[in-house]
């Protein structure tokens, strides 16, 4: 017996076997961001208005630099997963939805990678 809907048969798309992946990573990054996010927000606000040396000194601690990198990675991935759902739910024109999804992922990847490189450069 074939349990696929007629639409699925026409499109020829089956399960990619990663149905729960999006859900799981959204939760995992959320749990990671809970403690690190709280720590980061309180630390980050103190850096604002300070001088350049303070930021460099703050990131010279390996633990802090590592936590910032972890925070950035988890935050940007969590943002990507969330924005993906929002775009998929509210944009119904197929070409526009695809364009927004690709642009969103490219922008978040670019900013995320560049920010991590910047932190590493300051830390090392």
């Amino acid at each position, binding site marked *: 017996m074939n349990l696929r809907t007629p639409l699925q048969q026409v499109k020829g798309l089956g399960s990619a076997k990663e149905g729960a992946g999006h859900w799981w990573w959204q939760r995992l990054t*959320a749990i990671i961001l*809970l403690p690190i996010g709280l720590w980061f927000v309180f630390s980050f606000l103190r850096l604002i208005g300070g001088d350049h040396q303070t930021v460099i000194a703050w990131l010279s601690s390996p633990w802090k630099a590592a936590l910032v990198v972890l925070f950035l990675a988890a*935050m940007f991935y969590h943002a990507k997963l*969330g924005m993906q759902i929002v775009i998929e739910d509210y944009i119904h024109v197929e070409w526009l939805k695809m364009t927004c999804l690709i642009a969103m992922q490219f922008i978040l990847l670019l900013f995320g990678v560049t*920010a991590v490189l910047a932190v590493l450069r300051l830390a090392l």
Partner: protein
Amino acid sequence: MSKATRPLSPHLQIYKPQLTSVLSITHRATGVVLTFGALAIALFFIAAASGEEQFNTINGVFDSGFGKLLMFAWSFCFFYHLCNGVRHLFWDAGQGFEIETVYTTGKIVVIAALVLTALLWIVA
């Protein structure tokens, strides 16, 4: 499959907003707002790694009246998204689905977000 042109539920134009539905859409809205905050955080570190001159420019923007207002809004969005995210994690674990509990936790989330925002700006 032809697209149905009949009206779909919920009819948002005549849908009475409830605490539950408002908090739900606010979770998404704050998530989108926070994505832009993520880009701002990235720019801060990128500028810091680019040099003292670039850092001073972006630090000045963050430290301005407009920057502070933006960061205040972002911090509330952060704490709301964090608290309501915890509420979501409890739901994921199958807890707190009774209608009174849903309303109680909803109110707790709003109060906790306000308290944490105040705490952040008093402490940091």
